[in-house]
């Protein structure tokens, strides 16, 4: 169901309800826990595209890469050199596949928001950001336990060289900030950015539709100046929506990058030696 399904009387600005933008009727298994709607389809599509990109580029990898393979290699190199090696160091190389597929999956999901005929960021609903944040949470705790055993929790909660009375204040703060706030903010940051972008785009498109098409549908000479003024507004929102698509492209890449680099930072803080 596209956003143009929001209908308005000619000459009136359509009422936008958030539910129209974010809730979709079930396609399959309606009413059960397996209810499957457009979002589920988008998640599967994003996963499929991510797998297809990776397999297409590297299944028959050539020594002299073609155009597509070098583009994918650039992404993998970004993850490997600029994120993993710089943040975690050489012992973090085992996390390159995880971080790489995470980056690609989030990027593809975000780009759905500006893909024509899809127009819904897969991360614009809380389910996928929350799931990805849980993956990150599990991985950085597992990495800490792998590196230090159960001493990891002591390292994470009790900074060395702090007098005992202050520990009563510090340990709860560390507990909340490491194990609660980290996954929460990861999920909400991605979700909020994509949701806000989706609403912005929807408002710009609907305003263009209303000001340029609906207003002029009942055109008479009596309202010449009013219609003219509103049409100028419509042209401005049209230009604005084009600019917003570029802005959303930037936000999509940036959020995927930030999610990946923060995951790397959290893993690094788990595996580094206590000090």
């Amino acid at each position, binding site marked *: 169901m596209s956003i143009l399904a929001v209908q308005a009387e000619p000459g009136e600005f359509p009422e936008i309800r958030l539910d129209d933008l974010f809730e979709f009727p079930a396609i399959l298994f309606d009413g059960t826990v397996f209810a499957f709607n457009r979002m589920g389809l988008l998640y599967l599509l994003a996963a499929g595209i991510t797998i297809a990109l990776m397999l297409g580029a590297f299944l028959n990898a050539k020594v002299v890469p073609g155009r597509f393979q070098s583009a994918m290699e650039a992404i993998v190199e970004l993850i490997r050199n600029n994120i993993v090696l*710089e943040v975690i160091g050489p012992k973090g190389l085992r996390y390159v596949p995880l971080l790489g597929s995470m980056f690609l999956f989030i990027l593809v999901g975000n780009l759905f928001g500006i893909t024509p005929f899809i127009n819904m960021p897969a991360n614009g609903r809380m389910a996928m950001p929350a799931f990805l944040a849980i993956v990150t949470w599990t991985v950085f705790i597992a990495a800490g336990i792998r590196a230090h055993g159960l001493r990891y929790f002591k390292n994470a909660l009790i900074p060395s060289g702090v007098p005992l009375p202050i520990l009563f204040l510090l340990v709860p703060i560390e507990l909340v900030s490491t194990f609660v706030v980290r996954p929460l903010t990861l999920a909400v940051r991605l979700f*909020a950015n994509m949701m806000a972008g989706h609403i912005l785009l929807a408002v710009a498109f609907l305003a263009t539709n209303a000001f340029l098409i609906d207003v002029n549908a009942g055109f008479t000479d009596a309202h010449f100046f009013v219609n003219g003024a509103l049409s100028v507004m419509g042209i401005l929102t049209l230009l604005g929506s084009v600019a917003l698509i570029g802005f959303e492209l930037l936000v999509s890449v940036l959020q995927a990058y930030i999610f990946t680099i923060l995951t790397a*930072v959290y893993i690094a803080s788990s595996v580094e030696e206590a000090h």
Partner: protein
Amino acid sequence: MDPIIVDPVDLTPLAQALVYGLAAIGPALGIGYLVGKAIESMARQPETAGMLRTTMFLGIAFVEALALFGFVLAFII
């Protein structure tokens, strides 16, 4: 004389807008200061840029958390 009857107005949207707007002020200043300082340091010592960028993102994550709490709270109230 009739008593003045005031229509009850639902102020929840206003409260939501205020919650998010007020919650964004502090983090906005904080992130601006943080990134500005990080760029200053990168310009002084470009060879430390990688380390600084990582620390900057970590700092941004902490500061931005406050704004995100405001965002969530705006939906909850």
